[in-house]
């Protein structure tokens, strides 16, 4: 009986631990990229209007060093205009440059420039199976051969695709129709599916939900619009659930995170405009700008990707980022990296250096560093 009670206690304790944020114990084989040394690339967009070029900052975790001009120092040239996203694959870093209509290929270890691959208006970028896939704002997805570093194929998708994620050999592409704001983004509100073997569009996932769903991160039910308007950034949890940030129309329809299960069932999941998944946790930031004062309010929660329940409310409450832009969670350590603008002054907001905040998975601030202008994405090496 005593043994039964003991094991019961253990069992209950195990259950209770299951409801917390995952700890830092590694449970997977590190990706091959870690042989390069761990660190984070922060892609800085610069400012296209003032012709301030893009760049990247590299945070070398092994040496605890941050270098904001490593590419230009090593290569004596500019990265290009408007970096949007990046991926480290093999020994190379691939950076999509929207303004320069190109993908830059860079040695991820030495930061030496390798090649510029021309492709129109690239946005999201992802790698799988020896290829790199790029979402082109022109309504295509380009397939880049990583051996000869050239665009091998292109497939047409919906208008203004933004981000990509691979699940079970299928490429999911968020279709925003973002340039069609006059007609309510009518031709977006979905994910397109591309079969990677045949590299052909094989289906769509409509971001449309029949019934209102209560959202647990403090806002009640998703009243009004039940369409995923303006889907953009995507992230995926350990179970293969895809989470899509739908930015709304910047006016009446607020930004929400939608969940798309492995069975391609779509539903609203949380209120927020920045999201990053790590195992079964979804970190969601909901930042709102007061247009009268310029002040930014930031709400940051952590939700269980399986149930939608808030695991940690007001995450990192004592050290919230000033004006968050992007977020990523390191797969092995669970460290959470958030980029932010460095100033709320409207006249210099987009021409001043940004900030990189590094937190533990408990929300403790480890580090706050100055990076480049408009730090738009975090890519891990």
């Amino acid at each position, binding site marked *: 009986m005593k043994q039964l009670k003991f094991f019961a206690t253990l069992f209950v304790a195990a259950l209770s631990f299951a409801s917390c944020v995952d700890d830092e114990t590694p449970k997977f084989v590190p990706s091959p990229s870690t042989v390069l040394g761990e660190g984070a690339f922060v892609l800085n967009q610069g400012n296209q209007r003032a012709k301030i070029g893009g760049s990247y900052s590299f945070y070398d975790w092994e040496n605890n060093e941050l270098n904001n001009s490593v590419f230009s120092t090593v290569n004596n040239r*500019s990265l290009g205009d408007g970096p949007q996203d990046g991926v480290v694959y093999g020994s190379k870093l691939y950076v999509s440059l929207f303004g320069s209509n190109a993908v830059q290929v860079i040695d991820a270890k030495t930061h030496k420039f390798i090649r510029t691959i*021309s492709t129109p208006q690239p946005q999201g970028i992802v790698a799988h199976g020896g290829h790199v896939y790029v979402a082109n704002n022109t*309504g295509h997805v380009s397939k880049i051969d990583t051996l000869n570093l050239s665009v091998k194929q292109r497939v047409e998708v919906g208008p203004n695709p933004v981000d990509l994620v691979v699940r079970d050999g299928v490429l999911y592409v968020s279709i925003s129709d973002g340039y069609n704001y006059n007609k309510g983004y009518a031709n977006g509100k979905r994910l397109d599916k591309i079969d990677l073997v045949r590299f052909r569009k094989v289906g769509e996932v409509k971001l449309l939900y029949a019934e209102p769903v209560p959202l647990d991160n403090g806002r009640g039910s998703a009243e009004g619009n039940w369409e995923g308007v303006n889907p953009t950034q995507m992230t995926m949890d350990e179970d293969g659930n895809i989470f899509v940030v739908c930015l709304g129309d910047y006016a*009446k329809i607020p930004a929400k995170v939608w969940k798309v299960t492995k069975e391609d069932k779509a539903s609203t999941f949380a209120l927020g405009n920045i999201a990053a998944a790590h195992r079964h946790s979804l970190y969601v930031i909901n930042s709102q700008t007061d247009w009268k004062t310029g002040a930014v309010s930031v709400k940051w929660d952590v939700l269980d990707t399986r149930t939608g329940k808030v695991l940690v409310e007001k995450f990192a409450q004592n050290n919230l980022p000033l004006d968050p832009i992007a977020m990523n969670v390191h797969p092995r350590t669970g460290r959470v990296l958030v980029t932010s603008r460095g100033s709320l002054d409207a006249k210099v907001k*987009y021409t001043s250096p940004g900030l990189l905040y590094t937190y533990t998975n408990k929300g403790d601030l480890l580090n706050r560093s100055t990076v480049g202008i408009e730090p738009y994405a975090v890519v891990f090496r």
Partner: protein
Amino acid sequence: MLFALLSLFSLVVPAVPNDWRDTTRQLLPVEVIASSRMQQQMVTHQQWNMGQRDWQRQGAVQFADVLRRLPGVQLRDYGGAGAQISLASRGLGAAHTVVSLDGFPVTDFSSGTVDLGRFRLSDFGQVQWTIADSPALLTSVRSLGTAHLALSSASSVPRLGVEWGSFGQIAVDAAAHHRSGAHTLGVQGSYARADNDFPYRVANGDTFEYARRSQSPWQRWQGSAHWLWQTPQHNTQVRLNHQQHMQQLPGAVTLYTTLDGEELRTHRSAVQASHVVHGEQWQWQWAGQYAAQRLQYIDRGEEYPDAMHEEDYHQYELWNTLGARYDLSSFWQVAYAVDASHTTLRSNIGRFERVGRAALQQSVSLRFLLPTTMFTLRGLRHDFFHTVLGHATEALPLMPWESTAVASDAHEWTWSVSAAQQLWQTRATRGTLRGLVQTLFRMPSFTENYYHHYGNAGLRPERTQQFSLGLSVESIRLSSSFEWKGSVDVYHNRVLDRIMGVPVNQTVWRTTNLDRVRAWGVDVATQLQFKLAPGHSLEGAVTTSWQSVVDDSERKSATYGLQLPYIPEATAHAVVVWSNPWCDFSLTADYASERHATANHWPSARLEPYATLHVAVGRNLRWGCCNWHTQFVVNNLTNAHYELVRGYPLPGRSVLWRNTWLF
């Protein structure tokens, strides 16, 4: 080669004196009392005039060349023939610059600034630049502003003009007239085009990349007709003009790619009429204009719905001015003017199908005038009324600051006091002190009020306070072989409630009254003329400006006390002209100090200082029944690489050859 052959030909063709003049024509509403040199003695403000003969001698062949000679101006030029050019002065935005053509206002109510790139120098016979007041007591209220660029059409003396230049520049213009007693009928027309495929370089790290501007061809058609009736007692004129302009905009220079060009097409037409009657002690005048303008911006690309983004603006304006001047005595003059205008704008980008603005502006002016003293007082009342018609498609979502409200009506009193006093006159020199204090205000443009997402109907007008003090000195000994003039003007401007766009998020901007600007500056101008020998003269002119135009909004702001974007702290212009019996030879130099493209002076957005050198040679010839003026210009002789707007390089070394035949 062709120029060389013509030069040989000119050796046997008799030359004509280099001082023949165009037929003069009285202008409305400005009383033209200034010569083609610098301002005469009794003016209360800074004024600068240049006639066709002046810019021919000085080797200016493009309108931007003349604009650069104006003291204290900031020019934004996007590079190449036909490119957009805006003109601002003394730290105030381009929307504060008033532009008129033959006394009729040239406006763009959608953006609020006039694109001067649509004009060609051969369109004009005179350019007058006035800062802070008008030379004439009786003038339309619209022309009273911070700065006034008054353009006068070239005379319709029968002529043919042809230009060839680098980067595919070709232009042809012609004019003809018929005179019958006091009546004159005239027509003018011109066509111009350019490929604008000039080479440029862009910095990439410590090296430069060289490329050639592509996808930026431009062409323009322009035609006008006029009827003048001039007697000693009255002047009447009726004018019709039309202009079409098509251009591909190459976009900003971007590393590793060449952007597809966007298209810009404009159509402008105007019907204008005026009548001026003079008496011994009085004058009254009326002028009216109906102008229609269409601007289409088209960007083609697969990223847009239907593979195209189009912005289409239709703008209509009806403007009238009525005024009278009366000389109370030989010392006192009084004038009253009232301007009434109605402007409407339709576009596919606004929140409303149509927006309209009716304006009633009145001014009462008083002048005291002695041979050595002038004092002018102006009181101005401005009334603006807004209307809208219809709403944009209901699917357009509104931003939190947007509403279907209409911009508020506005009523404002402003005033201006200016004075000039001769300080001394000796046998050799004369010195005059002048000063000005005034308040001004500028209504938001339609774009600033109603543009989709960007516009803000709650904007307050911009208010400006101007203070200016100047000293002019000139030699007056007519028999001397050496004449000179000089002036120094110091000014202080304060702009309150400056309208600017601020980002709300990365994709959406909105207008707001955010700024205060504080400007201090000094403009120095000198002009010298030497008569070296019979038929030989040497002329030199230098203008320099120093200006501090800084953000004065919030002390804790990162931009407080920093020079505003694109305004240099120092500019200079110098020209030397040697006139001799064979030709006019000129050398011109321009300089601007560093500028910044961002309000916080981000290092990589700095624009380097630049200096350019231009050389020109021209000659007048007599060929059969016509006078023939030929001119060859080398612009940017040292092939300097520079920008006035970041990302838009200006052409390097280029040549232009212009020929004008007067019949």
